């Protein structure tokens, strides 16, 4: 079982656009925004294969951060990122909001996690959400995804606030 430790003390990335390593976020980021990890959002594998078969270009993956959100029932992706990748919606879902239920588009996508041992995850049904303007403090990278309990059901996660370390294994 691959194990990834994310240490929120070391190697603080402070330059906007700087790509963090697996041990990059600061303790302030852990407190202020929660556990994040670097993610590459890509077109889903069946779509990539279909594009290649037609000699069409496969869109370049979009890099950003994913927030591990234990409050979210399902994982989510920035709708802007899904549209940038040209992924067409594959469903709609009711999202509970303070103002009642709201319908959001659903997308398929592939998440990979550079700089660590975690295997890529193929999502069949990600909720498309508006994450515009969410930039993680101190990292200068946009938040482009939420990792919800649908995927956490496959993980072991240890949140150690005292040492500011997140450990993920699956």
């Amino acid at each position, binding site marked *: 079982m691959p194990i990834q430790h994310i240490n929120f003390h070391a190697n603080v990335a402070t330059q906007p656009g700087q790509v963090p390593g697996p041990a990059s976020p600061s303790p302030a980021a852990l407190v202020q925004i929660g556990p994040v990890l670097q993610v590459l959002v890509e077109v889903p594998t069946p779509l990539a294969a279909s594009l290649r078969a037609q000699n069409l270009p496969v869109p370049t993956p979009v890099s950003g951060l994913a927030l591990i959100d234990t409050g979210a*029932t399902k994982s989510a992706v920035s709708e802007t990122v899904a549209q940038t990748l040209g992924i067409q919606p594959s469903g709609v879902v009711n999202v*509970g909001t303070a103002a009642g239920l709201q319908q*959001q588009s659903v997308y398929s996508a592939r998440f990979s996690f550079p700089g660590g041992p975690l295997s890529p995850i193929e999502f069949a049904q990600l909720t498309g959400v508006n994450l515009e303007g969410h930039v993680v403090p101190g990292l200068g990278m946009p938040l482009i995804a939420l990792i919800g309990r649908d995927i956490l059901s496959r993980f072991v996660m240890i949140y150690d606030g005292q040492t500011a370390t997140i450990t993920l294994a699956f």
Partner: protein
Amino acid sequence: MPLERELATFQAHFNEWIQLHPGKFALVVGEELIGVFDAPKEAYEAGIERFGNVPMLIRQLRPDDETTFLPALTLGLIYAHPTH
């Protein structure tokens, strides 16, 4: 609204389809039920293989309507930056 035709088709045939395929995932493109599948991944693969990258509706045939909750986002908590 995206997938308006597909949603209307799904709703019009829901009672019939859930009797025949409870718990399965229906794949609807336009006004046609393309098939029912055990998992949404299988439905997506079938949709891409047959139609390419087009909007499609993949929805589970279940009696209750599934609701997703994203409280940190919907309550604006991601934006919250306490000073203490």
